[in-house]
């Protein structure tokens, strides 16, 4: 199952590569940020798997990338999504707060060699807040009113981020408190999270192709003319 997960995230990264040579217009910067996330995920997951297989510690890398770097990249992504100056300002403050929390925690409370659950939960809550604000703006503030949601990459990306992080926060938050001797149960939970994760990363790469698909009806009518 883990090998399949690693294969799928590698595939997602490869599928995202051709987009560097296509005209993505307003989505170009977002694609670059998402591709960076994919690259980091592929590297850390493969490295983590390799180190774990050889009995070596790997939590430093998970802390550095999954707990701290990826949430910061998501904040940058949302900074590109929301055009309002006030919201961008809040995202910068959120990122700064999150990093400061992480630095203080690492220096004074928890070693970087242990998984930073609290930082992960804080980062996830910030990301979930951004996702919920996106959907609230979509419905109440007529954000992206001119866009076709089904062909709008941001919609798919934010939807999958919402579901992935909603599920994973329950898993990662509770892992300290549940009976960790039931490895089979934990492995099943992890498999569900990995499945959602793999779907999410695939959607990250495929969604940027959606705006490039021309409307068939437009093509036919322009041929008739």
């Amino acid at each position, binding site marked *: 199952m883990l090998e399949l997960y690693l294969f799928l995230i590698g595939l997602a990264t490869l599928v995202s590569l051709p987009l560097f040579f296509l005209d993505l217009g307003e989505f170009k910067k977002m694609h670059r940020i998402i591709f960076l996330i994919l690259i980091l995920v592929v590297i850390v997951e493969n490295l983590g798997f390799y180190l774990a297989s050889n009995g070596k510690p790997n939590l430093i890398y998970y802390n550095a990338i999954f707990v701290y770097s990826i949430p910061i990249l998501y904040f940058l992504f949302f900074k590109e999504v929301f055009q309002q100056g006030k919201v961008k300002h809040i995202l910068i403050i959120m990122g700064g707060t999150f990093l400061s929390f992480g630095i203080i925690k690492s220096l004074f409370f928890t070693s970087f060699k242990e998984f930073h659950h609290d930082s992960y939960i804080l980062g996830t809550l910030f990301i979930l807040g951004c996702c919920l604000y996106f959907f609230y703006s979509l419905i109440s503030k007529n954000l992206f009113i*001119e866009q076709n*949601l089904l062909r709008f990459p941001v*919609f798919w990306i934010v939807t999958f981020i919402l*579901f992935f992080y909603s599920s994973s926060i329950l898993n990662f938050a509770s892992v300290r408190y549940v009976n960790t001797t039931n490895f089979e*149960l934990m492995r099943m939970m992890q498999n569900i999270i990995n499945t959602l994760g793999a779907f999410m990363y695939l959607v990250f790469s495929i969604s940027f192709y959606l705006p490039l698909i021309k409307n068939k009806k437009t093509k036919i009518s322009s041929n008739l003319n």
Partner: protein
Amino acid sequence: MDNSGTEVFYIVLLGFVLMLLMGSFIVTMVIVHRQKQLQNQQKLAAVRAEYEKTIINAEKEIRENTLTHVGQELHDNIGQLLSLAKMNLASSKPEKVSEGKSMLNQIIKEVRALSKSLNLDWVESITLEDFIQNELAKLESAAFCQTEFEKKGEEIPLEKDKKIILIRTIQECLNNAIKHAQPKSISFHLETKPEHLIICIKDDGVGFDTSQVSNGSGMYNLKNRMHAIEGEFHIQSALGKGTEIKLSLPISNP
């Protein structure tokens, strides 16, 4: 064994519920967003229709104004010239006949100018400065009041729709001054700033209480028309202290 079977069942059920939840969420968001889009498109169509109606009404009023002016000119100016020309041409004196012929030339010129003003092509070709000066010249020639015109900055060409609304607004402001203000003088100030066009129309007439202006009045309509072209209409007046109207329109420099 049973326990782990139950756990697997619950986990699979959880996964299924999660998928169902996600699918429902996506479908709901797309449907709600599509409804909002349709509502927004209807609103935009209504605003566009309102804007076009405003332009059409302004064009109609300019035409009516022009027809009134043409009627007056035909009666006052050309009618008189034709009578004089008839008298001169009927005379036996060669110099009178010659004068009558040159009057006919003048009448032909005046009629040609009047017929040109009947279609609205002159709106596209005329500058605001020329239009204002023409209107002020009409007031001066009728000895109605003294006029003053001041210009600052280089005039920038305007879109036809905006020009129509501005011209109509200026005409209406002048008509109101003539009808109600009894001014001794009317002054125009036309200023082109980097991002705004400002027109100030000031008279020293009787003034009025601006708080008494009702929602159905002409002033209210002028305000709405200026808003339709993203402009502003401000009026300051007090009884016995004259009236000042300020029109401002955002412009983009080429």
